[in-house]
């Protein structure tokens, strides 16, 4: 339980139209574009304006921008990076009204960061859906130097911030949108847990 077997990783949804919404914001990144397209088809005929936010930043290099441009009825905002999208999502939500529904699709890192914004605006589980796409590479937070490392795939890795050898725990923090990593040989110096591939 110290390292593995902790059930704090969010259970993600499948995007589908949320009933009763008066305005829909669909935000995605990389291969999450596929879920956005599927959702758009399911939302045909639904009331309320739809705003599309899409970031081309992708771990696997998938790009659905051209496909999303085939929906000229909906405002489409493209971004070069996930961070730029998330900053704009923050501005969009700060001006939005009750009745808004938010749909997120992309990597776990993207979903977690976007949920930090959604939570700031008190959007609840009945107003937001999150669909994970791609691999489950982890965003990891070092408890010692506060460095976040993206795309971690190994149980044991060296922190680029403080150079300590860390072990990635299965403890996911929604507040930090990251898994927690701690010094790997803190109990017995030199004794490292087995290096293993994470369940990506």
């Amino acid at each position: 339980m110290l390292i593995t077997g902790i059930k704090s990783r969010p259970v993600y949804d499948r995007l589908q139209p949320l009933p009763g919404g008066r305005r829909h914001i669909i935000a995605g990144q990389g291969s999450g574009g596929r879920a956005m397209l599927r959702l758009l088809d399911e939302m045909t005929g639904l009331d309320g304006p739809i705003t599309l936010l899409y970031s081309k930043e992708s771990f696997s290099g998938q790009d659905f921008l051209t496909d999303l441009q085939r929906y000229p009825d909906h405002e489409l905002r493209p971004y070069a990076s996930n961070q730029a999208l998330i900053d704009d999502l923050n501005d969009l939500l700060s001006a939005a009204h009750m009745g808004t529904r938010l749909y997120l699709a992309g990597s776990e890192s993207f979903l977690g960061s976007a949920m930090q914004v959604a939570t700031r605006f008190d959007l609840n589980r009945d107003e937001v859906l999150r669909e994970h796409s791609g691999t489950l590479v982890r965003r990891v937070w070092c408890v010692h130097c506060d460095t976040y490392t993206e795309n971690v795939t190994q149980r044991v890795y060296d922190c680029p911030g403080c150079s300590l050898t860390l072990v990635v725990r299965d403890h996911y923090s929604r507040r930090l949108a990251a898994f927690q990593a701690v010094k790997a040989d803190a109990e017995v110096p030199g004794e490292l847990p087995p290096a293993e591939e994470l369940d990506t």
Partner: protein
Amino acid sequence: MSQNNGTLNLRVARIESVTPEIKRFTLVSPSGEHLPAFSGGSHVVVLVANPDKTLRNPYSLLSSPYDTSSYQIAVRRVDSGRGGSVALHDNVNEGDLIEVTPPVNLFPLIKQARLHLFIAGGVGITPVISQLEELRLSNVPFELHYAVRGEEHAQLGKELQATYGEQVHLYRKGVESRMEIGRILADRPLGSHVYVCGPDSMIDATLACARDLGWTESHVHYERFLEQSSGGEAFSFTLGRSGTTIEVSPDQTMLEAVEAAGFSMPYLCRGGACGHCETAVLELDGELLHTDDWLSDEDKASGKKIMPCVSRAQCNRLVIDL
């Protein structure tokens, strides 16, 4: 402060008339101790001892959660009711002892809210008063929209206006225009929460407006106060575990009939809201008359569950798992 069976014996320190129908009771510990802590929106159940039976009436606390040297409740006199409120109005005097349960909160403030909107009608203002008291240490904005039947019913609203100023919108019948719930809820920022307490029509209108405007359930909170006249036809049912037959008189609830027969069962709100008294139906020959806000429509249709604090039955035979 003596406690028996978990209830508090409190002294009535003060009784004030605040409208032609509402009296405000201030309750303190006879020994001067602080009372159990509570949060805004909480209620207590007052045990009203009548000659033939003890009535249990829930009342919201309207004093400040930050000052537990006393509790305040507001009792609206309902002449057509079962007699609990009339007994409190006519038979209880300053200095008397009354028995109440410790506070329970089924109508709490949402701590993550970015805007609180309160909609209240008449005596439904009572839980909101302690909620507003709790918000005094918060920077989250709020508005209160409060409708009353006329100037002589407006004292609590005017007290709130004096305390909170323009955040309190009072709608006195014949003085101000009618409350428009749709306008109150329209174009509100994300993270708004609405809390409504008042007559059923006001609650239902708020739920409908919120749904039309796309508000989700997690942002809409309501508390119904039972019209204490809401009885029904007499009927009887059987406790499955002991085989005891319980007669329910027209002015009694199933829960009260169980208690009158000397049994106890779990309860909190006695208003069909909290789910605490949910009981399985083992046998039914007839129809359940569900009046609670707890069971889903499917549960109600299934005939397998009942909320004995409010619901009744029209039946030849009913056996519940108790």
